[in-house]
């Protein structure tokens, strides 16, 4: 959260997350390096440098695959949200593993060139006009560049400095990186692979990521396709108050594509932006405890009455005015500046309404 920046905000959950992640990486590399050398051989045995490069390269690919599955899985089923919590550390580690792959490649295939090895990487194959023998290295270079940008801008400072919107825009590069990795492998190792295990895992991984993104996109689309119901003064209908559950929110969309989270808390209604100030996580999916809603992505908290994080934290989100007409909840589509207090609206009890 805010206050003073530190290099890494460690907590027990992050230690556990990273321990599992590192153990999995070491296990994968150990299996790859110790158990499968025979399957990788061609006419002759491959040497240690190539073996290491393939171990780290394939490890980076599977790590990136897992990273790209976490987002849609969390949108499809909230039980996957804990995987999202420390995904940035996962991403930084993926960049490090991919960089190690690149070092092994440079240290073997281009180490003995009389030219500068980085120039040799670029001019050793220039068959850009044909698919057969296409210089797949260029896809790897682009993917590595994307991963390095993502890792280098992963600190929370960048979120605040760039704004979540620009930061997210930059981090869309993960999609470009994955497509580039798919091309790197499709026109690289897949052309040469002689056993069927890696191609099968590679194709299954790619198709799995593809299917999950389509499923999550369709689910989001169904929400966005719903009509916006307004009254004569342009206030947007949210729901019937009887449909609300104490401690939870109803999320509705506004005409400007924003989403607002309307909470029922101890018999009173409050509304804040559905986008967390940290990474624009879905605040409406969080539960209220002691007037504070907790973002399901990274645990940032806000008072739903004024949109402010509890002291000493300083994050704020916009608030919205509400009104009750009959038993129907309406929200003013014009947001208040972040941190603006709005008096909660009391919901009449059944006895009062009858």
């Amino acid at each position, binding site marked *: 959260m805010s206050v003073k920046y530190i290099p890494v905000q460690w907590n027990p959950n992050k230690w556990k997350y990273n321990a599992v992640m590192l153990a999995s990486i070491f296990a994968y590399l150990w299996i790859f390096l110790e158990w499968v050398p025979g399957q990788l051989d061609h006419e002759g045995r491959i040497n240690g440098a190539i073996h290491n490069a393939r171990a780290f390269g394939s490890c980076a690919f599977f790590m990136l695959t897992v990273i790209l599955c976490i987002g849609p899985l969390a949108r499809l089923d909230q039980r996957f949200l804990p995987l999202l919590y420390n995904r940035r550390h996962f991403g930084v580690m993926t960049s490090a593993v991919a960089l190690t792959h690149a070092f092994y490649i440079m240290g073997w295939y281009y180490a003995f060139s009389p030219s500068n090895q980085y120039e040799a990487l670029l001019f050793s194959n220039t068959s850009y006009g044909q698919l057969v023998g296409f210089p797949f290295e260029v896809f790897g270079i682009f993917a590595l560049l994307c991963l390095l940008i993502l890792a280098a801008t992963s600190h929370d400072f960048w979120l605040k400095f760039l704004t979540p919107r620009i930061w997210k825009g930059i981090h869309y590069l993960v999609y470009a990186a994955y497509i580039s990795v798919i091309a790197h492998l499709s026109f690289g190792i897949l052309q040469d692979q002689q056993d069927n295990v890696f191609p099968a895992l590679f194709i299954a991984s790619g198709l799995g*990521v593809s299917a999950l993104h389509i499923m999550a996109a369709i689910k989001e689309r169904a929400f966005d396709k719903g009509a916006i119901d307004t009254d004569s003064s342009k206030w947007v209908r949210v729901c019937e108050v009887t449909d609300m559950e104490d401690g939870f929110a109803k999320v509705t969309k506004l005409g400007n594509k924003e989403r607002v989270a309307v909470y029922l808390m101890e018999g009173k209604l409050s509304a804040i932006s559905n986008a967390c100030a940290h990474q624009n996580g879905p605040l409406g999916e969080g539960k209220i405890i002691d007037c504070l809603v907790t973002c399901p992505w990274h645990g940032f908290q806000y008072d739903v009455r004024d949109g402010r994080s509890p002291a000493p934290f300083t994050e704020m989100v916009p608030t919205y005015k509400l009104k009750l007409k009959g038993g129907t909840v309406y929200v003013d589509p014009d947001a208040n500046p972040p941190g603006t207090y709005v008096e909660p609206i009391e919901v009449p009890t059944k006895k009062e309404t009858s």
Partner: protein
Amino acid sequence: MTAAFLVSATQAWLLIGSLIGIVFVAVGIDRIDEDARGAYAFRPLLLLGCALIWPLVLWRWWILESGRDKWPNRHKPHRAAHFTVAIVFAISIPAIIIAGLTVKQVWPESFVPQKLSNHEIEHRDADPV
């Protein structure tokens, strides 16, 4: 020629970015972010990011220094673009894999290599050490 230019351009980009990063991390960051004042241990972590995306760093630095930052922009997720990005992404993956499989050259198991010419490959011995 092109490769040499690309390598030199990359080196120049990173050098400029590193210099901007050092100035930003040493001086600029205190001027635009109160949470950075008195916090120094995290600053080296920002240098690589500054070296890579320095034009964006300069632009945001100027926006914040000149008071042009607008609060509504901080609360607008890329929701409209997400569906398109997800679909293009999801379609691209199988398309690229299929393209890769299509151009894959598989020799029949019965294929026996044939010598097409009698041209002898010239072997050069390594230079004597």
